[in-house]
Structures are given as C-alpha cells and as structure tokens.
C-alpha cells in the first residue's frame, strides 16, 4: 500500500510538474483510441483504412443495399414481390415515401457519409503526417486509396441521390461533397461540381498509387505483406476504372475511353478461364470470376447473407421467374444454354430462379471465397464499347464480343450492328453481367431510360432520384 501510494504520488506529481496542465488534462480512452494518438504510427493509418473497408461491407452499403439489395431491386433484377415483403416491396414499386423505403434510403446516406467521415479523418491526418514514418511506398498507397475511396463513395451517393447529367444536366443540385471531418456542415454542390471534385480526388489518388504493385511490373519492396491481395483495396486500376465510370456518367467519352483502355490494356485483370467456371463440383466453381475483379470487398459473412436473401428457403427471398431469366440471358433451352452466367450462376428451385453467384458452398477454395464484387473488368469493355459505338462500331463490337466469348457465348455479335443496336447489346450485358452487383439501375439512370425492363412504371427522376433524409434537408442540403 505504502509503495503504491508513494509511486502513484510521484507519478502524479511528476506528470503535473513535467508536462503542462493541458497535457495532463488530455486523457486517451483505453477501450477507444484517441484520433491523435492513433495516427502516431503507420499501423494506426493502416487500421483506420481497414476500418473504412469494413464499414463498406455493412449491409446498408456494399454488404447488401448497394450491391444485391436495394439497388438491384430498383433495377428490377428481381420480381415477385408481394405486399407481405416488409423489406423490399415498397422499394420495388418506387414508393420512396413509405416508412420501410425511407428507413432504408436514409440508412444508406448516413452510413455512406459515415464511411466518408472516416476517410476524411484519415486524409486529414495522412496529409499532415511525416512520410518517413511509413515503410517504403505504404505512405503513398494508403493516401491514394483514401482519396480514391472518397471519390468512389461520393460517386455512388451522387448516382443515387441526384439527377443524372443526362436528365438534369450538370447544374442541377448534387450532394454535399464532404472533405473535412468536424462540426462544419458541408453544403450541397451541383452535380457538375461534385463530378469535378471526384475527378480531382481521383487525380490525387492515381498519382499516389503510381507505384501500386497491382500494376504489372511493379514489385513491392515492403516486407510486411501489407500490399497483398490488391483487389481487396482501392488500387490503382480501381481508381482508373472509376475515372472511366465517372467520365461516362458525365458524358466525357474521351476520358472514359482512355481510362477504360488503360485498365484493359494494363492486362492486370484477365478474363476468368473456362476451366475455373465449368467444373463438375459446384463448390469448386469460381463464382465471382475472381481474376476479373478490379475491386472486391472481403466479407466473411457473405455465405450467411447469400443464404438469408438469395435462396428459396428465406422468407424475403430475392429472385426472378425462370422465364424472366431466360429472357434476360436469351436462353431457349436450359440444357443447351451456353452463357455461364445463366448455366452456372443461377439455379432453379421450386419454380423460382436464384442467383448463386455469392453462395459460399462448403469446400469453396479460399481464393474464390468471401468476395463481394464491386468493380470488374468487363465494365471497362462495355464503357469502351459505348464510347466507340458511333466512331468505331467495329472496335466497339469487338470489345463486346471479347466479354461474350469469355462468358461462353459461342455466337459473336454481327459486325453490322448500328450504334443503337450496340447500345442495346451493352444494356443486355449490364443486365446479365451485373446481377447482384447493382450496376443495372445506374445504367438506366445514366442513359435516362424512359422505361425499365420488367417494370410497368414510367421511369424518370421520380424513380431515378432517391430522396435524401429529412434531417439533411433541414440543413438546406
């Protein structure tokens, strides 16, 4: 007791006399880590960045709603909803004012901006940090990923909550582009301004990621294995691919084409070989075509999610009638269907057909498992095709055929297709390729389609623009 008291006293008084009063009043939580304290080491930056990826795997974000959930429901990738479906019925009929829809839509906004807040705090700290604290290229890579993620996260918000440039132009109200973490409220910017800011962040990201080991020929000298599995991170090509995606959305076809080609020609993401897809043992199928994934999220609960939402046994299953699937994949006869995406990645149970892309059967190789696709290389082919459909239709068709062949489709597209027909083929590809990946709705919105397939509703901004939360509107956003 005596020693304890004496030592406590000495410590206490030593602290009080050696440090200033304000330092003494600076207390760092133990079960939590003070932000300033965390960013004293490289590990803190790594952990904060990992934290952002984990936030993105939340079901309100890319863990469900922004991949196979809400966005695919909006894109009519599923059918057969009844008023008993508590989660998605109101969303499937675009009744955004209903309680269930509003709750889901508000949650996406809030969670996405929460991830952005985490990125912003990381960026603020890494910009102020000493690069020498980091091993080799880690400083630049972490910084590049953070800037890239900020652009990525904002872009999806823009695609959901603001009018598309094709409909409202670039001067329409956009979203707040939050680039600081704190009490200051970021006002809403126009769509054009947000697109500009996204490209600006991407420029920073691409510069910082120039030495990304994902780029063929670049070899990491880091010993800590931090730069493993780059497709799990927002790597150089993810930034490039996003650049293409954003440019096409903004109808800047030159940039879109250049960026898409940069990814394709980088050859870092080859098409999946048939040998990984057409295999007898279902567990051994490479369901998400891993070699093609530019950016994918690691989700250890993917199997549970898939069986909760995407099977017949669940109460709120997301599926489509077999006929609808056949229409989408242009299949006459299931037995002879060539397209892997139908043959292998959908499965019929009790008169409904379900996507099994995300199913995690027992024995699935770890190299295929627990990957939620976010960006894949095929989209770059589609973007290139779309950019070239007017100026060089043959090359455009060539890009589309490349994907079709990789999917097992034996018949190439006719080289005589006109621009409109090419666009129609691109649409069909989005529909087939991005099942469970959420991109179809964004396609409809980007081209400002007047109708959506399998939907009786007239599409338009009432459908394409989700309402932002009331507590956001309250602040003038």
């Amino acid at each position, binding site marked *: 007791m005596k020693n304890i008291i004496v030592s406590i006293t000495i410590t206490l008084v030593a602290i009080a006399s050696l440090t200033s009063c304000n330092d003494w009043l*600076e207390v760092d939580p133990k079960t939590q880590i003070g932000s300033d304290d965390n960013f004293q080491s490289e590990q803190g930056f790594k952990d904060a960045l990992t934290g952002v*990826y984990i936030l993105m795997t939340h079901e309100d974000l890319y863990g469900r709603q922004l991949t196979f959930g809400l966005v695919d429901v909006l894109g009519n990738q599923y059918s057969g909803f009844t008023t008993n479906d508590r989660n998605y019925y109101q969303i499937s009929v675009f009744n955004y004012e209903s309680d269930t829809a509003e709750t889901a839509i508000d949650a996406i906004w*809030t969670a996405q901006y929460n991830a952005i807040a985490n990125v912003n705090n990381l960026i603020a700290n890494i910009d102020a940090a000493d690069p020498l604290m980091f091993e080799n290229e880690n400083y630049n890579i972490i910084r590049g990923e953070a800037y890239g993620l900020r652009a990525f996260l904002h872009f999806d918000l823009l695609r959901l909550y603001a009018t598309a440039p094709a409909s409202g132009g670039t001067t329409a109200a956009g979203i707040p582009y939050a680039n600081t973490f704190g009490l200051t409220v970021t006002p809403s910017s126009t769509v054009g301004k947000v697109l500009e800011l996204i490209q600006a962040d991407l420029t920073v990201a691409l510069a910082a990621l120039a030495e990304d080991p994902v780029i063929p020929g670049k070899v990491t000298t880091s010993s800590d294995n931090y730069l493993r599995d780059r497709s799990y991170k927002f790597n150089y090509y993810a930034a490039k691919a996003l650049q293409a995606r954003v440019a096409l959305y903004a109808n800047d076809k030159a940039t879109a084409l250049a960026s898409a080609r940069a990814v394709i020609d980088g050859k870092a993401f080859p098409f999946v070989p048939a040998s990984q897809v057409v295999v007898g043992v279902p567990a051994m199928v490479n369901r998400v075509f891993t070699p093609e994934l530019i950016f994918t999220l690691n989700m250890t609960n993917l199997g549970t999610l898939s069986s909760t939402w995407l099977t017949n046994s669940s109460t709120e299953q997301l599926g489509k009638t077999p006929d609808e699937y056949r229409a989408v994949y242009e299949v006459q006869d299931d037995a002879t269907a060539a397209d892997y995406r139908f043959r292998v990645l959908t499965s019929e149970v009790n008169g409904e057909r379900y996507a099994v892309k995300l199913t995690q059967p027992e024995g699935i190789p770890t190299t295929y498992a627990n990957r939620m696709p976010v960006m894949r290389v095929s989209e770059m082919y589609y973007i290139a095709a779309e950019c070239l459909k007017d100026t060089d239709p043959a090359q455009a068709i060539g890009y589309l055929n490349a994907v079709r062949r990789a999917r097992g489709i034996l018949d190439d597209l006719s080289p005589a297709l006109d621009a409109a027909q090419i666009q129609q083929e691109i649409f069909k590809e989005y529909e087939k390729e991005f099942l469970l990946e959420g991109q179809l709705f964004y396609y409809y919105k980007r081209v400002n389609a007047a109708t959506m397939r399998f939907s009786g509703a007239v599409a338009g901004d009432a459908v394409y623009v989700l309402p932002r939360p009331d507590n956001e509107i309250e602040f003038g956003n």
Partner: protein
Amino acid sequence: MQKIFTANICKIMRITAAQFILLVLTLSVAVAGDNFAQGLLDRKVSIRIDARTLKDVLTTLENEAQVKFVYSTSALDLSRNISINASDEKLGAVLNQVLTPLAIQFVVKNNAYIVLKKEKEASADEPITDSLSASQLQDVRSVHGRVTDKEGLPLPGVNIMIMGTTIGTATDGDGNYTIEARDGDILVFSFIGFDRYEIVVSGDLVNVVLNENVTQLNDVVVTGYYTRKAESFTGSAVTISKDELRMVGNQNVLQSVAILDPSFRIVDNLDIGSNPNQLPNVQVRGAAGVPDLKGDYQTNPNQPLFILNGFQATIEQVYDLNMNFVESITILKDAAAKAIYGSRAANGVVVIETKRPEEGRMRINYNGSVDIQTPDLSSYELTNSSQKIQAEQLAGVYTSTTPLIQEQLTAQYGQRMAEAARGVNTYWLSQPLRTGIGQKHNVYLDGGDEAMIYSVNVSYNNVKGVMKGSDRTTLSGTAGLSYRYKNFSFRNLLTVDNNNSVNSPYGDFSLYARMNPYWRIHDEDGRLIRSYGNSVFNPLYDATLKTKDFSKYMTVTENFYGEWAITNRLRATARLGVNHSDRRTEYFLPATHSTYANIASSSPEYVNRGQYTIGTGVDNNLTSDIGLAYNVERKKHALYSNLFYSIGQQSSSVTQVMAVGFPNDRMNDISMANRYLEGSSPTGSENTTRNLGVTLATNYSYDNRFLADFSYRLNGSSQFGARNRWGGFWGIGAGWNLHNEDFIRKLRFIEQLKLRASTGYTGSQNFNSYMSVASYSYNTRQTYNGDIGLALQALPNPYLQWQQTQDNNIGFDLNMFGKLMVRGDYYLSRTNSLLSDVTTPPSSGFTSYKANIGRTENTGYQLAVSYKAYTSAARKSYLNLFINIAHNSNRIKEVSNGFKQLNAEQDADKDGNSGNITKEQRQTPSIRLIEGMSTETIWAVQSLGIDPANGKEIFRKKDGSLTYLWSSADQIAAGDAAPKIMGSFGANFQYQSFTANVAFTFKAGGQAYNTTLVQRVENADISWNVDTRFLSERWKEPGQASFYKDIADQTATKPTTRFVEDLNELVFSSVSLMYDLRRVLKGQKINNVRVGFNMNDLARVSSMKTERGLSYPFARQLSFTVQATF
C-alpha cells in the same frame, strides 16, 4: 512549488505509513494514563447535582478535583441553588458552566488554588491584582508558552491579551508565544472555533490547551476544505449534527437528511420501493439538468457532489456509511458556499465529516441496533378468487362463439369456481415477503496524548429487506491517527469497506402481484406447482433454485492531511486521498428456471439454457491538494483566506462476460458453462477523467457587522473539449449582521438577525468522459482479409464544456428571544449550456453530436423555523418544535433540436400501435422537453371522460373539437410531478432522562400519473390478477356512466388527463424515543448508556390511491438502539 510539494508529500507519506504500522502494533498497549502534568482547570471531573447550593457544589468539586477554592463569603451569594451534570469534563468547563450565569469569575493562582470573585472586580478600573499577593510588585518579565488544541496540534495565530489591557500578541506557526507580563496577570486566549481560555500568570512558562468549540457545531460552516465561522459566512449552508441525524431515523444518512432538509429531495420511485440494494436518486434545490434520456451521464445528472472527509465520494459510499460514525453533514446550496468546488458544484455539495478522535484516556463508544422492516402492502387492492373469476366472466373470458371452445371454457370456469369454493384464495403478495431483521453495530474508540491521538472505528451494518433473501451487508473499519512533529501536524485516516449486496432469489415483486388468487401454490402432495398452463409459471418454484444475483465491493480509502504552520498567520496544508475499489456482480439462472421452460428439447438452444453473467470493475481515484491559509484579525477587521491547488484523477473500468448452458442449479459456477452466449464477447468500458484547479476563498468581516465572501476556482477537466479545457467559477456573497448594530441591539429580543445575499457561477460535469475527443474503436467482430479495422465513434466537439449554473440567493437568519429561530432563503438558479444532442446533417458522418445547448431555470424558497417552546434547566427538560418548507419550480428555457427530435420520435411511437415500444410504455406519459415547461411535466391528452353510449374515451383536441382518437399532437401539460411545496415538521422533547422526537414530511401541489389505474384497471390484462376496481367500475353496457372504458376493450390507453391526479401527501416519517440510563448506572464503569427506539415511515395519508412498490415493496421500519460509552 510542485517540486517542493512532491518532496513533502513523499516525506509525509513515508511518515504516515510508518505511523500506521506503529498504530497497528501498539494499539493494545496504547492506553494513555491521566496526564499528571495537567493544569488545575484541565482536571477531569464527573459531577451530578440537582438544585443544591453553590457552596455544596464547590465543596463537591474540591473533593472531586482535588483543588482548593478561595473566595469571600460576603462577596459571593453561596446560597444560590444550582444544578450541574458533568461527566468526565474539565474542571474549567464545569466552573464556566456553574459560575458564568452567576457573574462569578475564577482565576488560577500559582497553579495551586482557584480564586473566585464577582465579575465587575475584573474590570479595567479595578485591576484584579489589587487585592492579591506581592507579586504585583514584581517587574514585568517575559512569559512564554505554547498553545495547542486537544490533539496536541499547535495552534498558530491564537490571540493572547492581558486582561484589562490592550497588550496582546499572537502565537507563531509552532503555537509558541512570548508576552511581557507580570505574575498574577490574567492571559486571555481566544481563537476561532475554540473556547475562550483565561489563565493567571505564575512563572515564565504558560502552556495552554484550547478546547475546540464542539458544542457549537452550528456556529461553524464546514466546507470540506476549511471551516468558517457561521456568524461571518454569507453563503447558504445547512449544517446537520449527528444528533439531529439520529433523531429522525436509523436507516441511512440520505434518508435522515431528506427529512431534515426538504431542499434535499429523494425523488419518488414507486418501482424500487424499499429495496436496500437500490441507490436513491437525490437532488438539491430541484433539477438543474435534464433527465438522462440517452445514457450520456455517469450518474444521475442532477446528483449533488458528495464530499466525505474532504474527498469526493460516491452516493453508494454515503448510502453505506454508518450513521453513528458521522459527526456532521453540511449542505452547501448557493454559489458563495459551493463555488470552491467549481465545475462539480452546480447540483449542490453535501459535505460529510466523520468523528474526529479526541485526546485523553481511551474511550470506547458502542452503538448498536436491531432494525426491523415490515412490508407495507396497504396500497395494493387486488381481487380475491371469487372476485377475480367474476371479473373474468364479465370480461368475456369464458365465452366463445365456437361451441367446442365454449365447452372447454365452461369446464375451466367450473374448475376455478370449484377451487374458489374449496377455499383456494392464495395471497401471492405475501409469499416472497418476510419481516426483515437486520443489525447494526459500531464500535469506536479513541484517545491519546498531545503528541499522538488515535481512533479506531469498526462498523457492521446488515440490512435485511422485506423480500426474502434481499440483504445488504457492509463491514467497515477505519483507523485514524493524528500526530505532531515540530510545527507540522498530520492526520491520517485509513478506511476499508466491504459490501455484499444480495438480491432476492424471489425475483421481481410484480411477478407475485399479478398471480391469480385461485391458483394454488402446492399440489395435493405438498409439492410446488411449476406451471398453470399457457406459459404461466409459479415464481416460487424459481425461488427454490440456487440462482445467484449479487454484487459486492471492497474499497480501501486512504486520506492524509498535513499542516505546516509557517508563521502565526500563515499555514500550509496538504491533502492526499487515494481510493481503490474492486467490484463484482454475478447473476446466474440455471436451465431449470422458468425463463427457459418453453425451449423444446429438440431445439439447438436446449443445451444453452441457463445463463451466468459475471461483471467485474475496478475504480481508482486519486485526489491531492496543497493549500495556504492566511488569517488575520486586526482591530475591527477580520480576514480569513485560503488558496489551494488541487489535482485529481478518477478512473474506472468494467468488464462483463456472459456464458450459457447450465443444465441444473448445482452447476452454479461459470466454469461449467457450455459456451459463451451466442454472438457475445466480453464487453467492458473504461473511463478516466482528470482535473486540475486553483481556488481562492476569502471571507472578510468588518466589526462583525459587514461581511463578505469571495471564492474563485479556475478549473480544468479532461472531460471538456480541447478548446474549452479551462473554466472559471466564482461566488460572491455579502452579509449584514444587524444584531450587532446598536439600533437592533437595543431591541434586546433579537439575538441574531443576519441578511445574506450571494451570486455566482458553478458547473456540473458528471457526463461520460471522452465525448469531446475524436476517438476510434476497434471492430473486434470482423476482420478484413485478416486485418483489423478502426471506426470513428462520434463527431467530436472540441468546444464541449461543463453545464453552468448561475445561483442567486438571498436569505436571512433570525433568532428572537433565544427561542425562535427562523432561516429563510430565496433563490433563482439558471443553468446554461446543458449537455444535449444536437442534430447535424448526416453528411457530416454522424447524425448528432454533443453540445452545450439548452437552459433551465429553478426558482424557489426555503423556510426553516424552530421554536423552543419550553425549556427548564432545573427539570432538564425541553420541547422544541420545527417546521421546514421548501418550494421549487423548474422551467426549461431552451432545448436543443436533438431533444426536439427525441420528443417527436417519442410522440410518433405513442401514436403507433405496434412496433418500437411496449404496450406499457405506450400507456405511460413520456418525458418531453418543451420550452417553458418543467422537466417533470406530465404530458397527456385532455379527456372528457368515457362516453356512456359506447364506453369510448372522448378527447378534446388542441383546436377544441372532440374526438375518440388519441393523437400525440393534442397532448397538453396535464400536471407536474414535482410538488409545489414540500417539507417536514415535528418536535423534539426531553424530560430528564427521556427524549422523544417525531417528524412528519409532506408534499403538496404536485400531480402524478396513476399507473395503477391504467395497468390494473383500465388496461388490466384479465389473464392476470387485477385491481378490485376493475370489477366494479369498468364500463359494461350502454348508458352506464363510468370512469373507465369498455371492459372488453384491450387496446392501450395512451396518456390521458383522466389518470392525472393531484398528489398531496402527509407521511409520518419518523418517531424516536430514547432513555438515558446514566442515573441507573451511577457508579458503574460504564459512563453512559442510552437505549432507544426508532420507527420510520409509519403511516401515510395521500390524495392518490396507487400501488406503491411495484418491483419491490415499501417497508415500515422499526429499530431498537443502544448507545454506550465506556
């Protein structure tokens, strides 16, 4: 400065620790003998004389004290009748008591005899030396000596005057003095807080021990850091002595204080009743903050600050404190009084001092009591078997349109009727109850000489609640030691508390209140019936299992005080408090518990039945301060000033694990678990706060007429935002002692009349730590490709600061004829910067953050009147009457948008009929924070009663129209749960050896929502037992005028003014009787024995009839006490 402090503290600590060991080793032999070097006047005498002549008294004293009195029989009236009763008191004190009223003065001559003379002889005109020996002719010479208190600590700054002259000096830092005087001169020693002392000079050395003015506790205000003379203090503070505390109860300190001072309010909680393991919710002068709706606070946001022996204490420590160990309690209410506690003081400060050891031969003091608690079920009015069956029939329980079911129901009805006819009428309420018989024991011993004084206190307190098996046992030991080294003096207090709180295995009392009376407890074979069908289980069966539900803590507190008298006016003090607590809670239910009765053996959860939860916690607190005290009295000016620097750290951490799978109650150890609770992992939290402060407190008085107080504290805390770490808190007070003005003095009947006024700012900060900093937390449940990630926890607010309360107070103290004492205060407190959630656009990453927005205002008055209706020294009897009244009104002036949103969310929940909240919550008014209203406003929709035509309730909408539909938009302020006026009154009576005290408490002018009527009548679930009014008063047929809605209507009755009732209440709170056995025991070794008897909460008259004690019943309390001194 700090380095010096370090060195000193370390040195002091080493000495302290060494002394401790010494104390423990030598305790048994450390019995001090009589001090043979004592002066005549310090000799101890015990004398007891009733109405005999002065001459007799003096003769007795001569024998008792072995002294000689010298006096002139012609000058003194020796035939006056006198009564005196002294036990082990100093002769000087006894003589003062006897002679002062007779205007006779006494002086010691040559340390051999005592001269008595009429007081006027000692005036300046007639030097007392005149008639005395030849010593007057001697030359003036240097007399020196040392002045100490009874503990032997030197007293610096003691005023010494030669009587009849203006020659004077004061003691230096060591208590030493030198004065030029002659033999035979009388030296007068005076010092604040001590009795005046006179001694005749004989010889060069005159050492003096001053007696602390303990009998005049009320004349001193104890602030926890220092004491101030009450006469010159301008703050609003109430001091309660140990005797007053005991007069009104034997339960716990909080309960007694609440009876004695109505501004100290224990907020009603009908739920927890008299559960000994539930800490009360306390507030002083109303609620400055808003209710903790979101768990932002560490404790009740309105809880006052408790200071125990100078160091911050938890409400639990105070609750478990043995009342017999308490010396005094001071409640600091206004800014002038509490500003020294800065950012912690806004809710008021309660300063508790425990007994201080006294010098002398060892005394042993024993206090014991047997405490009996009996359940008070008078508020319950439940149906009996036949009434219940009748009620069920009326409610349509036994009717069905399906013939097959009708057949079954008829059979069931027949069975139940048969049971009732057989006399089955189980009184379930009494099943889990008992008469709790607890015990308290307290042994205190102290003694020592002027160099070292020791004390040891051992307390045992066993509270037995009225539910079987609900116990709270506290065992505490305290060792105190005071000692002196040159002009340093030290005091050390080491306390160990061990508490064990066990909750009743019978579970929640409401489980019994709802059981139907026609159910038997045992079957024909005498075995407990487990189930009554439909998932209804016998709660008594669960009570037979070896469940566990307890918590325990062990606290070690070390308090150290050091004082260094630098000069005669300047003293330096240092204090160090270290506190360490270990806590543990365990909760265990085996698989056989009825909670799990519905899990089928085929279910995978079957093996996971049974649950064990263990929580452990550690608290470590450290407080230290160093201070300087400067006192100066010169001519008519008196200045007392204290400056201190304090530093502290409070940290606490808790961890909890939950395991499942305990097949039976013999496997009652967590190590036998099947697994952890699915999806759970160890949880825990940690909190560390640090604070720093510099405080200046000054009291100035001019001629004891004009008074002023000024306190300032510069306070920093880690809980506040980086931009707002430091805050200044202050209080100023002014006072005017009118009774010292000639024009009042002439009135004669006014003995005291003081006017006081004060204002100032204090803060409160008991919200959770870390709200102001950006912090990350690891997500331990998910990895990302093998890596672990961090997530931001909240939007930090670097501007976050304490809640600020501005207190304005005016008051007066009046004493007329020495009989009527009146104390009045009026206050206005404004609290700003309430901690609240402020909503922010979610694009900032979070939907809200903590900020200081919101204001409340409390105004009120307090009046305390006491009247000595009868006093007779001769008969040793008196009768005192007292009444205390307090009024407080609370207003919310501003709330944040976060609270507005919360109001809206709650309203939306109430409007709905399913989802987020339970039926019970839907039936209870919500706490809505609306500007201009009180935080305790009861919100309900205005009701016009039940439509006799259809049994539906008619509501009046805000626009005046009528409707059957309840809407949250129509809610009005239907009442205020805070009473308009509350108080206490009573009497203290003594006749010779017998004393009696009674106290009543009352409250009036408030309202309450009668949830009993809602839940057991209006919305009663007929499958459970109901209030008798369910049967008699519900609407049953068209045309019937009824207070209650249609008996067949099962929907939730949402808050309606129909159930808002006025709550006026008078409680017979306490009665205590005490008998002093001294006369009986005369001549025995025991000095003093008193036996007594206390009762609490004897009776209650209320304007509202509602069930009280829902989860735990209320109890009536009765204690038998014994006090003995050896």
